[in-house]
């Protein structure tokens, strides 16, 4: 018996939806047998205001499970999220935007009014353009994670989440069984070679490639933090490449930037990273633009606008 499922996307990029499509062969039985999809803007034509567009109130069909990607940034996102909560027995926050604000929550570090005005006053916009405000949803005061607005039953972070993990969770939900989310850090699942503390006192920007032999397995490469690169593995939830492969960015030879959000759901990636650096004898002041350590997790009030600092410091 297929489980009725509704999908929605809010302040999002569609990467989570593409991750669902990347499930591969298992996708076909998932979307045609395990799930009965009743609403999903990227895949099907169910409309909010009726199929002939003359309804008054936004309608989402009742479903056993709802899957929401994206954070909440304007009045329309909020209206849709509330409707999803009302109509779905279980609500899953999919992806780091939904769980922690994601990249778009970097806007929380800006003066929003000035920011929107700047977007419509660039080197190519016509002179005198104003921020649109007719028949478009009004922005909220900041970007919120979904759980700041409604109760969320299951959080599946990632930017994007791992496709196999999505398949496992949705299949488990369809079959009515529990599923266990890993509570490990990227470092816990990273096979690189660690030699110990002490050798590095500052972190470098990623302007040259890491030192590794591409012919050798990733496990032979020395830890990127120990090579002196800023890597957020210690403070980031694991699971990007699935549970049996090295973390995705490490496989590409580049350091982690924290896209799965904090290891503990209520962690603070910036403070945790500062602590991790300090306890390894690394000067945290060598991190350029420290606030961008919250680039994936700036919701929940963590990333805030700072007063203009005449000294021009970015910290």
């Amino acid at each position, binding site marked *: 018996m297929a489980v009725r499922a509704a999908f929605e996307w809010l*302040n999002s*990029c569609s*990467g989570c939806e*593409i*991750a669902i*499509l*990347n499930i*591969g*062969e298992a996708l*076909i039985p998932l*979307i*045609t047998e395990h799930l009965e*999809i009743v609403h999903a803007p*990227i*895949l*099907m*034509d*169910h*409309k*909010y205001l009726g*199929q002939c*567009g*003359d309804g008054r109130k936004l309608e989402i069909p009742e479903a056993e499970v709802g899957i929401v990607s994206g954070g909440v940034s*304007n009045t329309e996102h909020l209206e849709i999220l509330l409707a999803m909560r009302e109509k779905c027995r279980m609500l899953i926050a999919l992806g780091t935007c939904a769980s922690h604000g*994601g990249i778009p929550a*970097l*806007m929380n570090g*800006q003066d929003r009014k000035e*920011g*929107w005005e700047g*977007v419509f006053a*660039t*080197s*190519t*916009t016509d002179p005198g*353009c*104003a921020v*649109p405000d*007719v*028949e*478009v949803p009004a922005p909220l005061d900041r970007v919120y994670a979904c759980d700041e607005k409604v109760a969320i039953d299951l959080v599946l972070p990632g*930017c*994007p989440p791992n496709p196999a993990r999505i398949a496992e969770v949705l299949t488990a939900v369809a079959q009515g069984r529990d599923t266990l989310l890993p509570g490990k850090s990227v470092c816990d699942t990273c096979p690189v070679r660690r030699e110990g503390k002490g050798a590095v006192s500052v972190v470098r*920007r*990623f*302007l040259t*490639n890491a030192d*590794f032999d*591409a012919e050798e397995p990733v496990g032979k490469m020395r830890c990127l933090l120990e090579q002196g690169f800023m890597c957020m593995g210690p403070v980031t939830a694991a699971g*990007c490449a699935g549970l049996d492969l090295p973390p995705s*960015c490490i*496989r*590409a*030879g*580049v350091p982690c930037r924290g*896209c799965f959000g904090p290891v503990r759901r209520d962690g603070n990636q910036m403070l945790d990273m500062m602590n991790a650096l300090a306890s390894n004898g690394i000067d945290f002041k060598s991190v*350029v*633009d420290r606030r*961008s350590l919250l*680039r994936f997790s700036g919701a929940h009030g963590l990333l805030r606008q700072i007063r203009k600092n005449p000294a021009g410091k970015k910290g």
Partner: protein
Amino acid sequence: MGKVIQIAPITRIEGHARIAIHLDDRGDVRETFLHITSLRGFEKFVEGRPAEEIPRIVTRICGICPWMHHLAASKAVDAAFGVTPPPAGILLREICQLLAHISDKILHFFFLAAPDFILGPDADYSVRNVMGIVKAAPELAARIVAMRQMGQRMLEGFAGKAIHPVAGVVGGFSRPMLEEQRRALLRDAETLLDFSCYALDFAKDSVFAQYRDVFQEPGTITTGFLGTVDRTDGSLRLYDGIQRLMKADGSFTDFEGGRYTEYIGEHVEPWSFGKMPYAKSWQEGFSLDIAAPAGIYRSNTLARINVCETISTPRAQAALEEFRGMFGRPAQQTMLYHYTRLIELIYVCERVVELLQREEATDTRIRTRAEPQAGRGVGIVEAPRGTLIHDYTTDGNGCITRANLIVGTTHNIAPMNMSVRQAAASLIKGGVYDQGILNRIEMAIRAYDP
């Protein structure tokens, strides 16, 4: 006061938008609006960030085409820091761009647009989707899922991440290609090339021939076109080249990407967050009037196929010649975006096979060391949905002070508004419409923009 029909949300596209069709008292179309309802502020919140981090941030503009943002930003930061990647670094970037185009085109045509053709534009919404294709044509469905997945797996296996990639870095690429990887990628690329030829044949037999009426009318407008071509022979280019802006009469001007602000302006309407680029250099202003448009050009597959002289690979060139024989140059029918998308699918497959056969693919000199500096860089690539422009200015510490982005889709926002208007006015008369008619109006959008 007449009625307002809301198509909300527009479905089977990437992005957040709705259509409002305003009818007059007789029930004819008075006005239509394509409201783009998403605003995130990337141009603003990249300010202050170290420029070399930008290619890892702007990917989130679009989860369907993150590679395009990744690479346009990498090229822009290269230029701002004054570095040129080694030949192999450029080659690896282009290989990834091509692989991303392959998955995107399969997704766009088969997963998102094809339900309108395979199930029919008037089919019920509950079956007019990819799940419906699985039931109606299971073998085709299994094949398109497998082929799209193959492209994504190739990217992931080689570059670590397929969605929101990280392997493009200022100065080049983060890891070299091994000989063993090259051989495996080449084998898969050849499979995809076979599929691309099948896809065009399938569409010609089962879609374009059957839906001749749909292809003639809805959404057709007359505009100019923008694309990228080879700077020596004018052939189709996706990773680099010179920008070509063509008028509706087929005459054109070529310009260097770094000078785009002299050619392109952006108009803003109060009812859409989507800015509307237009050809400022034509000096005719901006108008969405279907009978007398001003400054309007289009991007994406139809535009690229119209502006290029030739295509450098044989099978795509043959398809181009056949296409031009039937539809001329420039072709204007909006639904031909699908046809040209499948011609481009053949090109990207042929091109990736060609690049994977080159010796320098496995060269280990893939990155030039970059030093943060004050500068400005414009990076342009052809994204599936059009010419993608990233423009960054940096301070002495190599951090962003100013950013301007013109995303592929936005070039088509003004024309999509016109296509919706044209389709709605021709399909809705005297207040008579049903869900099938509203879907045909949306099909005009889907030609451009899933």
